[in-house]
Every structure is written in C-alpha cells, then in structure tokens.
C-alpha cells in the first residue's frame, strides 16, 4: 500500500503543473491539442454508440416512471395549444412572407439570405456547471465556431467548437455566453380592432362557434427560415383573435405597423370550423407599438438561472424599461448573431444604485432544457469576414 511521502507529493504537484500547462496551451489555441481532441472524439464515437444501445431504453424507462404524470399534463396543454394555432398558422405564414417582401423592397437586413441547417441534439453537458449541448453535424456541414443557433422559439446559443461531424453549442444560459441585444417595448394596442363579417354574424355568434379564440403567436422561427423569409420580429405574445383574423406586426417600423393578410387565400382548403370562421372574416386593423428602448448585453448565469441584461442606461424621458418588454438580438459589427432574432421577454427589473443601470431578467422563449432539433444559422459576422 502506498505511503504518503515527499516524493509522492512531487508527483501530484507535477501532475497539477502539467494540467496548468495544458490549460494554458489550450486556452491560447493549440492545433496539436485540437487534433488530439478530434481524434479522441472519433475513438469515442463507437463506444458512445454502443453505450446508447443500453442507455437509451434505460433512460426512457426511467423517464417513463418519473415523468409520466408531467408528460401527460404537458401533452394536454400542448394539444390545446395546437388546436388554437392550427386556425391561424396559414395566414400567419402568408403575412410573414408579405413582411419579407417589404423588407426586401426597403433593402433592410434580414435573415432571408442566410442559409441554415437543421441538426439533432445528441448530447448534453455531463457536468453540473456547463450549459453545452452537442449536435450531430460539424465542420463537414459548414459549421464554424461562433455561428448562432436557434430553434422554433428563438435564439438558443452559439457554436463554440466543431469537429468533423459534431459541434458543441454554448447555450444562452451559460455564464460565458454574452450577446448584444435590443430591448423593445411590449406590444400595446393603440386602437380597438375593427371587425367586419361578410357572413353577417356577430362576434358573439362566432365566439359560440369557436370556443378558443385567443392564443399566442403562431409563427415559428423554423417555419420562417424554411420559407426563406425573415425570422419573426418581436413575436412574443401578440394577441390573435380567431374571429377577427390574425395580426402581423412590424416592430422594426417606429410606432408599429399592421398588414392586412389575404385571409381568403390563406384559409383555402381548410376544413376545420375554426379555419372556416377565420376565413369568413376579413378586416383587422390594430396598430401595435413596438419601439426600441435600449441596447444592452445579455449574459447567461448558469444552470437553473435565467439570463440577465446588463449595461443598460435607464432614461425615463425616452422609455422606461419594464416587465413585458421584448428582447431581440441587436446585430452589429462585433456581434456573432444577426439582428432581430427573438431571444425572450423581460420578466423582472432590478434597479441598482450608482451608474450601473438596471438589470433585466429575461425569460428565453426557447426552453433550453428540452432541445431535440436545432437550426444553425450560417451567419458570419462582418468582423470576421476575410478581407
């Protein structure tokens, strides 16, 4: 049995110094270590595949036992949500396309021209500190370090390392994640929606036909990217009335702007009573106010904590930062993310004394604890474009 001696302590110190040396080399960027990492990932690949054969059914059984009730409850809630969304999905998509056309006409920046690629989440960080996921595509798919990653709800992170066939994505909740963001005012209706019904039915009669009429926005990030159009802008919670037709907001325009979707075309071929009712109504005029309030830096704070926005300057004469404000990426020369990707909504404001300005707690749209498929936006920021 080993005895604790000075000589043995030297071995331990030597190992710790080796760690420090490796750490220094790796943090400064060392191609030899990068190659070693790639090689080890390749060696581990068959081992992990074999382990998955055992682990997957065990994990499913465990989740089945421990999360069945929760899953059932969520399934019911999701079914309700799907029922609400079906009726407005087609018109919302059409409206986004119209919005994209307008952006193109005005030569405004958008994500329309940026290629994206879907990848599957194959692993999560196995320690209790990092908020990192692993995806099943990497350098061979054109992924590079720094590319933003989104899912259907909004921004979820950025790529921090790539191998040939995998990539690591640092989630927006990780303490090392920082992205410039823009805080926008929450949508407020400036005018009462007007409604005309060619069918001659009153709103009350239509409401009798359609029990569920109010729901969240229906436009998904991936839907928009699939159609080659821009990401939804400030798509947090605009109220959509099934009996008055969907709204499309243009937050980029000061003071808000609304477009009138061609409901008849969008709902053609729909058999659901909800869709038929939606198709029977034609006019909606609601002006939403979405004004840019302030720019700041969104920072993750680790597992279980929601991100915060710092470096804000509160100026009540211009705008008051408050709960319900929307947060989107700001873009810009140094930002790794293009502008106007939805990030989340402000749920709390903490005032600090001194020049630090307020802190805003941001609830991300995307649930980063349950990710399955993600989409990598192949965006190279201006600061990294080779001259």
């Amino acid at each position, binding site marked *: *049995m*080993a*005895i*604790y001696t000075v000589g*043995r*302590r030297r*071995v*331990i110190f030597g*190992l*710790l110094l*080796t*760690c*420090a*040396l*490796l*750490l220094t*080399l*790796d*943090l400064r960027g060392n191609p030899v*270590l990068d190659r*070693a*990492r790639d090689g*080890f*990932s390749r*060696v*581990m690949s068959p*081992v*992990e595949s*074999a*382990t*998955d054969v*055992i*682990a*997957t059914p*065990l*994990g499913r059984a*465990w*989740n089945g036992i421990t999360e069945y009730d929760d899953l059932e409850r969520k399934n019911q809630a999701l079914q309700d949500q799907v029922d609400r969304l079906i009726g407005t999905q087609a018109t919302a998509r059409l409206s986004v396309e119209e919005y994209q056309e307008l952006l193109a006409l005005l030569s405004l920046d958008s994500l329309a021209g940026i290629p994206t690629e879907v990848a599957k989440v194959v*692993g*999560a*960080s*196995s*320690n*209790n*500190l*990092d908020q*990192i996921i*692993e995806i099943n595509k990497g350098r061979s798919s054109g992924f590079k370090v720094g590319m933003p990653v989104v899912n259907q709800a909004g921004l979820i992170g950025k790529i*921090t*390392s790539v191998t040939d066939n995998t990539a*690591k994505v640092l989630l927006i909740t990780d*303490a*090392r994640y920082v992205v410039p963001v823009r805080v926008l005012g929450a949508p407020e209706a400036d005018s009462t929606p007007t409604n005309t019904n060619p069918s001659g039915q009153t709103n009350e009669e239509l409401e009798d036909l359609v029990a569920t009429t109010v729901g969240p926005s229906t436009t998904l990030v991936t839907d928009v990217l699939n159609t080659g159009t821009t990401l939804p802008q400030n798509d947090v919670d605009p109220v959509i009335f099934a009996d008055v037709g969907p709204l499309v907001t243009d937050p980029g325009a000061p003071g808000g702007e609304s477009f009138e979707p061609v409901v008849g075309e969008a709902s053609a071929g729909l058999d659901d009573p909800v869709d038929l009712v939606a198709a029977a109504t034609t006019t909606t005029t609601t002006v939403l106010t979405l004004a840019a309030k302030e720019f700041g830096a969104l*920072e993750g*704070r*680790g*597992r*279980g*904590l929601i991100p915060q926005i710092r470096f804000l300057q509160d100026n009540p004469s211009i705008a008051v930062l408050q709960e319900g404000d929307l947060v989107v990426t700001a873009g810009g020369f140094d930002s790794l993310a293009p502008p106007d990707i939805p990030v989340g909504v402000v749920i709390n404001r903490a005032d600090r004394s001194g020049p630090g300005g307020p802190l805003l707690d941001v609830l991300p749209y995307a649930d980063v604890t349950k990710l399955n498929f993600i989409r990598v936006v192949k965006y190279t920021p201006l600061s990294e474009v080779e001259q």
Partner: protein
Amino acid sequence: MLAAIWQGPFIRLVPAGMVLLALQRSLFVEFTVAGVIVQVVLALAAAAGAAAGSERGAIAGFTLGVMYDMLEGLPIGSTAVAMTLAGAVAGLLAVIVADPQWWLAMLFTTLGAAVGEVMLPVVRLFTGVPDPFEPRLTIVVPVVAIAAGLLSPVFVPLARWCLRIKRVDWVAPPREPAL
C-alpha cells in the same frame, strides 16, 4: 517500454474510463438526483485514490480528467486538475490505514469527490468564467460526493482492477521453532 505500457495502469484505466465517460454522457445525464448529474468519472478518480493511494489516485484522476476534457470540449486540464486533486485527497486514506475497511474507503471517496467538485468552479474562475460559484453548488457538491460514496463499493474494486492493485493478504508470521 511496450511491456511497461502493457503492465501499467493505462491499459485498463483508459478503456474503463471510456466506457464510464460514455455512460456519463448518455445514461447519467438522464438519471439526475435533485436535478444534479451524478459524476461517475469523478467517482472513479476518487475511488482510485482510496484504493491505491494519493500518487496513483492522482495519476488516474489526471488521465480520466484529460479524457473528460477532450470529449466534452472543455479546455484540456480544467477538469483534470479537479480529478487529480480528487484522487490525491481520497488517497490520504492510505496515511491512516494500510488495508481500509469498505466504509473508510467510502468515506474518503466521498471526501475526494467533494473536493473535486468544489475545484471545478475554482478552476473556471482562473480561466475567466464570470461568477462560477453558483448558489446551486450547495446542493451539487453534497449530491455528487454522496453519490460517489455510494458507488464506491463498486468503483473501489474497479479501480483496483484498473490499477492492478492486489489486496494485501495478511498472514501470521511463522512461529519460531520451540527450543
């Protein structure tokens, strides 16, 4: 040299570590306790210390830590520091007793794992991570340490096999012939 490698600890430790790493990333990510991921690789590093002493525990921890860093995409050495210290601290058991009882091995494995888990944010602090000491650490460290202790009856023998440690057979000294 080849014989030294063949008879050294790495020939068994590396494959065992690879399997545990794969299990860590697939199975144990699902099986969380109070939302905390049980760290089986760290547990093996600490168990190696409890089984073989500080020096070999540190070597095992260093090896497993470097493997962990390479696979997780972390800066190489960041987890290795923590696991090296976990193995070294758990190996202090050898100072107390030459052939420890199972519960003593469990105790020191728990201690080593706790030190290793605490060291992780410390190392992150040196690598520039802002505020690595999350409030959740007060839950994470005990859960990881206790889980490592509970796994020690399995992992200490596994570490002995990996490091080719044989239990000491205590035999009575031969009787002196009666004059």
